[in-house]
């Protein structure tokens, strides 16, 4: 007569089964995924130092609309770059879910206003594909790649390129004092 396997045997069998699985640790990268309207974007997590929810932005006169103003982050004054305005999204009242990403580039640091932060997550590096040729023109210089997250396509952007692009923008011809 066949006996019922004892609990110890069952657990041992289960353990053996797990041991047979090959451990393949693929390299991952941490990303901060955010939205502007229905468009999904990401920055490398190492370039985002903080996600600020309720910072008061102080408007400064003489700045373009893409520069919202400055914030006081524990005594440090940081600018706030508004991506909606910078990339020509229609102006809307600021959503409640809006956040400021405090981004650190190689040389400069600035806040970046986004509509919503979706997730901070680890993504397998290999899942990031090369940027598509059909990317919008304003994004092309900033794009590091694209990856899928569920049904969404997320564009991975480079903070340094974003800042460099903004620093390189020509000054207005008719400046005030």
């Amino acid at each position, binding site marked *: 007569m066949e006996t019922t396997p004892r609990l110890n045997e069952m657990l041992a069998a289960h353990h053996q089964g797990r041991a047979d699985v090959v451990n393949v640790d693929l390299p991952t990268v941490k990303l901060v995924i955010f939205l502007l309207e229905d468009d999904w974007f990401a920055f490398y997590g190492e370039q985002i130092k903080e996600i600020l929810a309720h910072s008061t932005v102080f408007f400064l006169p*003489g700045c373009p609309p893409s520069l919202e103003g*400055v914030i006081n982050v524990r005594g440090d*004054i*940081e600018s706030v770059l508004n991506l909606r305005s910078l990339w020509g999204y229609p102006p809307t009242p600021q959503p409640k879910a809006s956040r400021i990403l405090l981004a650190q580039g190689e040389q400069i640091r600035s806040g970046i206003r986004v509509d919503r932060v979706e997730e901070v997550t680890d993504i397998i590096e290999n899942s990031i594909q090369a940027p598509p040729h059909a990317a919008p023109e304003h994004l092309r210089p900033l794009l590091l790649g694209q990856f899928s997250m569920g049904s969404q396509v997320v564009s991975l952007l480079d903070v340094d390129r974003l800042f460099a692009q903004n*620093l390189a923008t020509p000054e207005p011809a008719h400046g005030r*004092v």
Partner: protein
Amino acid sequence: MWIVCLPKTWPRLNPHMDAYDEHQDALLLWVVRFQAGTFSCAVEACHVKALHTSIPESQPIEALLGLPPAPSGACRRTLLIGQNTPPYALEVSEPVILESLCVQQLRPLPALITRHTQIRALQGLALDESAAPCLLLDLQALTLHDATHDMPPHLNQIKP
């Protein structure tokens, strides 16, 4: 009209003169603070020669900063600024106060702001605990922009 002639050596205005500490004073920046629209602004006090009641011919600070003109009923004052004669007359809104900022309050402009601001006289910011940062303005940049600005004749005779 009333005139306040301001001394050249601002540290002497320190109310704690008895305990005057040169080292401590080196860490202070004396400024004349005023309003421009909704913004609190300040200029280095050592460049301000005098404070007048409002003089119609003086240059409104709002025009220099690209802000809407001050409302007609606003309390206005004129700062006479610059080391050379004739001094430059700058019209500002009250309150106009002389105060010291400690070095820990001063902050340079963030790089993106420096790159894009159209106000070249904007030199830095001073932190205020409970309010928006104060705009620190460079008087040289303020005055140089308008080389044709003529002082009213009676102001030219004012000696600091």
